[in-house]
């Protein structure tokens, strides 16, 4: 329990440090927000007035704390470009990305883990060799390319969905799903291949360890050794990768959202970077950092539950 | 490193000290293990591993140090060589930096360097003398003959050598700069019995021919009996008994020593 508190404390500290870094970084690059809003042609008086209004004349730290307080209370600032609260801009996007990430994650686990188990169990066999070569190829395909190929095969040839289209969940859940499944596959494929490869390698590494020999000496079958002994040990390193993948996917798959034209976080982030709409970018990056740190914490805690050795200091 | 003192724990570790007939003298050594605190602001925790250790090594003698794992044998050797600096008390060395030979011949030689390179390295970093390439190679050939190795091994990598050969290379590297005190930490424990006997004989020869003093650390009481003049028995960070090998083995005073001798079937 103390460990959990300690970890949470570290997490908060990291968050504060990250937010401070981000705030300073954006302050450095973004230049004067007033100029952004009013354009370069504005008179100095108007600029000065707007700065006063936005509280930009206060020292940096004061502004940081003001921003942090706003952030914690849900006030993420105002978009330069749309003149809308950033919160409203992001509120509708985050669930889409979130859903896409979770969906992809489930696919990664469902495809990657059984494949890893199978190839690890039958390493050196014909099926293993074929799967491993396919894995290498799949890992080499950039997601935007596979996204286009998937649109082509499933959209244009098989007519399972209309490429470039999107139906919100509120309108029709089945349609929403059918539009999500293909981007999810594009996101999940390389990671599932990686998961399978990692799990296979990990199983084979554990297979060379002494305790595996002990297990055989007690009369276990190969499957007995695999499922009762090796699997849990072999899964630990894979868990770290899966955690990182989930965090990455929650951060948003920039290219896949662009290919499939999904109105998620990443698309908003990209547009905002293009528009130099810094309040939106800052809020989005901060959200991503938050997600990553929380997932890391969860993985740490889960690891501790699974591996009794880490519980000992 | 010479004459460096530790301000925090006031341990004195001094080379080139004026000692008469001894190459090392340790007085009231209390050695600590510093448990590095993870967080920046916390005080590092100190854990004591050696308690009131007093001993000396006479010139040209082999002193055995016996004990079970975790008793502090290796800590003592690291303190003597100056690797561990967290201690109180005084450790005086008559000559320069003592050299070490480690137990595991697989990790004590840098696997990515050839034997010749490894043997030349102590000469390259010698601060007392600038060795030319020719001098270095001559010295290497001289030493390699002394430890009874073949010259063609100089072109090999450590993992192409057998355990016994590696241990000879380690010894060669240690005496490269004519050290006077060698600390051998379980040098033969990882070797087969026949190889073990050869390496022990080599150490004994070097000891006689070069006037080398050796602190010989081992858990094997038989080996210690064979090679050492005097022996110290260590238990849980304390030296519980010391004396000449014959005294200690024939007439052990402490219960622990008796127990060890019994376990070794002596």
């Amino acid at each position, binding site marked *: 329990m103390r460990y959990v508190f300690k970890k949470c404390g570290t997490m908060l500290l990291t968050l504060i440090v990250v937010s401070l870094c981000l705030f300073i970084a954006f302050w450095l690059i973004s230049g004067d927000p007033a100029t952004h809003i009013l354009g370069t042609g504005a008179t100095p008086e108007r600029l000065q007035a707007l700065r006063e209004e936005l509280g930009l004349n206060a020292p940096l730290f004061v502004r940081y704390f003001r921003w942090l307080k706003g952030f914690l209370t849900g006030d993420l600032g105002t978009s330069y470009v749309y003149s809308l609260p950033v919160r409203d801009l992001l509120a509708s996007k985050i669930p889409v990305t979130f859903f896409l990430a979770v969906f992809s994650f489930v696919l990664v686990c469902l495809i990657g883990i059984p494949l890893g188990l199978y190839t690890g169990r039958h390493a050196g066999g014909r099926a293993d060799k074929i799967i491993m070569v396919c894995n290498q190829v799949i890992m080499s395909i950039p997601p*935007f390319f596979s996204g286009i190929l998937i649109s*082509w095969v499933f959209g244009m040839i098989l007519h399972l969905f209309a490429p470039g289209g999107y139906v919100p969940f509120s309108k029709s859940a089945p349609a929403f799903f059918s539009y999500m499944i293909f981007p999810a596959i594009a996101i999940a494929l390389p990671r599932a291949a990686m998961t399978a490869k990692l799990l296979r390698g990990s199983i084979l590494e554990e297979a060379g360890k002494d305790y595996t020999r002990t297990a055989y000496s007690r009369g276990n079958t190969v499957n007995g050794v695999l499922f009762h002994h090796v699997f849990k040990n072999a899964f630990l390193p894979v868990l770290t990768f899966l955690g990182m993948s989930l965090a990455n996917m929650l951060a948003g798959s920039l290219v896949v959202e662009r290919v499939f034209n999904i109105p998620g976080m990443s698309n908003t982030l990209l547009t905002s970077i293009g528009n130099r709409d810094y309040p939106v970018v800052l809020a989005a990056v901060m959200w991503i*950092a938050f997600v990553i740190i929380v997932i890391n914490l969860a993985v740490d805690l889960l690891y501790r539950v699974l591996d009794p050795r880490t519980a000992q200091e | 490193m010479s004459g460096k003192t530790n301000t925090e724990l006031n341990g004195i570790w001094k080379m080139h000290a004026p000692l008469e007939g001894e190459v090392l003298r340790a007085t009231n050594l209390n050695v600590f293990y510093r448990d590095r605190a993870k967080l920046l602001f916390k005080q590092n925790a100190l854990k004591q591993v050696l308690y009131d250790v007093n001993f000396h090594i006479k010139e040209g003698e082999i002193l055995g140090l016996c004990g079970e794992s975790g008793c502090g044998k290796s800590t003592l050797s690291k303190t003597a060589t100056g690797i561990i600096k967290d201690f109180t008390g005084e450790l005086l060395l008559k000559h320069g930096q003592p050299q070490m030979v480690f137990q595991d011949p697989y990790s004590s030689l840098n696997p990515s360097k050839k034997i010749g390179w490894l043997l030349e390295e102590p000469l390259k970093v010698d601060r007392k003398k600038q060795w030319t390439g020719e001098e270095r190679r001559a010295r290497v050939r001289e030493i390699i003959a002394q430890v009874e190795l073949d010259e063609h091994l100089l072109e090999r990598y450590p993992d192409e050598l057998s355990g016994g050969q590696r241990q000879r290379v380690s010894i060669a590297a240690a005496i490269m700069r004519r050290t006077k005190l060698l600390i051998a930490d379980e040098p033969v424990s990882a070797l087969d019995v026949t190889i073990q006997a050869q390496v022990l004989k080599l150490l004994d020869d070097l000891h006689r021919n070069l006037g080398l003093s050796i602190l010989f650390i081992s858990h094997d009481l038989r080996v210690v009996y064979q090679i050492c003049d005097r022996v110290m028995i260590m238990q849980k960070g304390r030296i519980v008994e010391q004396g000449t090998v014959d005294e200690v083995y024939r007439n052990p005073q402490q219960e622990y020593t008796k127990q060890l001798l019994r376990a070794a079937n002596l």
Partner: protein
Amino acid sequence: MEKTSFRQRFKTYVSHLPHPGYFRAGLVITAIVLFVIIVGIFYMPYGPTELSPDRLQDPSLLHLMGTDKMGRDVFSRVMYGSRVTLLVAMGTMIIGAGCGILIGALTGFYGGALDEVVMRIMDALFAFPNVLLALVLVSLFGSGTFRVMWALGIAFIPSFARVVRSEYIRCKHMDYVKNARLQGVGNLRVIFVHILPNVKGVLLSNLLIGFNNAVLAEAGLSFLGIGSQPPYASLGQMIAEGQEVFFRVPSCVLGPGIVIVLMVLGFSLMGEGIRTASGTLEE
């Protein structure tokens, strides 16, 4: 020992690898890609920005990969673009590995408070997706091929720093390091002469993986419109432009896409060939 030709030694080296088949396949693929890139330096059928009236043509002998919507020859653009991608990926590796080794070696060897702080930052950066991190950095530096290279290079530092650091932590407790210090070898010499060569195995496999990730990240960035600016060609950007006409002239997308895949696949197969073979679970 008898002198053998480089070719002969290379052949024996390959046949003693854990997976010579993978390595050979990777080598062939990489050689093909490199061949195309090198030829492209000296000769391209058309200029990469050369317009022609023949728009949206399917592959033919005149245009091996057809032409795009502006009538530019896709094959010539692929030759040019893959050169850019390769150079950016190599630059990324030099920056990322160079800084990563330096940071990892020093923090790993010395440890202490500085190590804690630096590694916290590295951990936080490492958790960010490469493309995203580079994107944020690009918005700092501004876009352009060189800036993208720097942004990617910085984004790759943590992955190298972390592995190198953990290798140094492992190595610095080895007896040979203790021995070197007892012999009076200075810290810097221990770090760079004694320990560094022992890190090369791990470093090599990380370089191969990193290179692939760099290629994919560069392609991703240019797909998103960041990187070398139009009209100059880059593979990702060609795919982005080709996406809208993909259903009429697939070669606009397939050409650059397949080159990316081959570039990555070649290196990853070579990497796979070097990886030590593990046993089997069978009794």
